């Protein structure tokens, strides 16, 4: 397989990773909470789109906004009513809480949706440019993922809420002095995190079979992307995602697909030790 094909495969995969991880990164960076629910949020988004498609024939693109709103509400509610109560407790507490919540969500999903792998097959065929081969659904997935990430970036940069989120992340006390209610911004951020996870799930179900048991794998990817790209920034997650995608694509080719993940995690450990602020690293942010 030639290099160009590997790079393109990697970028297609990486765009999905970026979209998957950006919400996780935002929550971690702003709230200082490692959200163990993130993987299940992704799966939930995928399942909702799948069932809307298979029972009511709703096109996944049409389902996208509904899934987004639904997951935002779920995330906002969980943060507002539960996580907020312990958000200033040590790492282990918030991590354990979100893990407990994840067990509940996971169990609900396996009972109501069963663990069968599901995928929306749109049968769009594939095409070839300059000798690089690409299935159409993958291309659409990649473009969608990039578009969603770009929209989030734009909103964060230009909206009042976006500015408030950055302010809370940089300096909580000063943010309070601006009249920003930190708890409400926390809930919104968590909602956005869940929303991005759900949207990523819709895209993923177009490309890969989705089942509850891969929730952990997706969560693991989000970890790696965050550590590569640095916490809490959209460009960081984008770069982190693309780097991981390309690295995995090459690793899968040269060391075999079963070792691609090992390489990803080794990269994570290496970066944690060498440069814990991530490759992009927000200046001055620990």
């Amino acid at each position, binding site marked *: 397989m030639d290099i160009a094909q590997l790079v393109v495969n990697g970028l297609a995969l990486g765009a999905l990773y970026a979209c998957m991880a950006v919400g996780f990164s935002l929550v971690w960076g702003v709230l200082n909470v490692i959200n163990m629910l993130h993987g299940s949020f992704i799966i939930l988004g995928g399942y909702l789109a799948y069932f809307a498609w298979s029972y009511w024939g709703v096109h996944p693109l049409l389902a996208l906004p509904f899934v987004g709103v639904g997951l935002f509400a779920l995330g906002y509610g969980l943060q507002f009513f539960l996580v907020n109560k312990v958000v200033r407790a040590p790492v282990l507490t918030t991590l354990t809480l979100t893990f407990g919540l994840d067990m509940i969500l996971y169990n609900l999903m396996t009972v109501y949706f069963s663990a069968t792998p599901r995928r929306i097959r749109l049968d769009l065929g594939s095409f070839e440019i300059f000798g690089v081969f690409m299935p159409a659904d993958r291309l659409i997935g990649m473009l969608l993922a990039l578009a969603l990430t770009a929209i989030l970036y734009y909103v964060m940069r230009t909206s*009042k809420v976006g500015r408030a989120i950055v*302010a809370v992340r940089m*300096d909580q006390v*000063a*943010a309070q*002095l601006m009249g920003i*209610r930190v708890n409400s911004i926390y809930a919104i951020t968590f909602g956005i995190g869940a929303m991005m996870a759900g949207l990523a799930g819709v895209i993923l179900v177009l490309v890969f079979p989705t089942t509850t048991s891969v929730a952990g794998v997706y969560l693991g990817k989000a970890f790696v992307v965050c550590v590569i790209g640095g916490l809490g920034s959209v460009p960081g997650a984008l770069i982190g995602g693309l780097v991981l995608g390309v690295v995995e694509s090459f690793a899968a080719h040269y060391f075999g697909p079963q070792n691609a993940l090992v390489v990803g995690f080794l990269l994570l450990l290496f970066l944690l030790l060498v440069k814990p602020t991530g490759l992009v690293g927000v200046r001055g942010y620990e």
Partner: protein
Amino acid sequence: MSEPLLEISGLTSGYGDVQVLWGIDIVVNAGEIACLVGSNGAGKTTLMRTISGICETTSGKVIFDGNDITGAPANKVLGAGIAHVPEGRRLFRGLSVRDNLMLGAYMRDDKSGVKEDLERVFDLFPILRERHNQDATTMSGGQQQMCAIARGIMSRPRLLMIDELSLGLAPNLVEDLAESLVEINRQGTTIIVVEQDVMTAFELAEHAFVVETGKIMKSGRTSELSDDPIIREAYLGM
């Protein structure tokens, strides 16, 4: 003219188990510039933070413009019309000067008014207009202090509290800032300045409150206080 705008009585507060303020009484009149002076760690900053709702009030009363705002959360205090420029400026890293200023107006919904005020602060501090796209925390100390003050007045406060105006700034810069404060005051904003440098504070303010170990040790007109032998000895070095 000398309507009381802020009346504080018997205010106590602290951090966790450590009590810092031991019953503060202060009255600040509408339209004036007042100053809080006192040594490092006397409780000036804690007083500011308690008024603005960052530190929890344990007892006492804070009346602002006739309304009881004792123990109100930060957003309510700001909404009532008190803006607080914190010690060390605390601009938001990674955000431009303009975004920092816009965050100052976070609670306001009147877009045109915000735009107007943005022009107003740009006129007051022209350097900020020049650098509006720059990351605010990469400017010099004096420019950052300007930005912090400007951010404070973006909420259109009735009362502006500035903590440690001159901290880490060269004397000539402090003079410029003091002039800007006089201008802001002239436009109708009441100001409280916390200042370690008593000379600067007394030149700027009409009334002074001397804070020592969490209490108001002395207060009065600055013209009179600067003749007080104890103040002269302890703070003015005369």
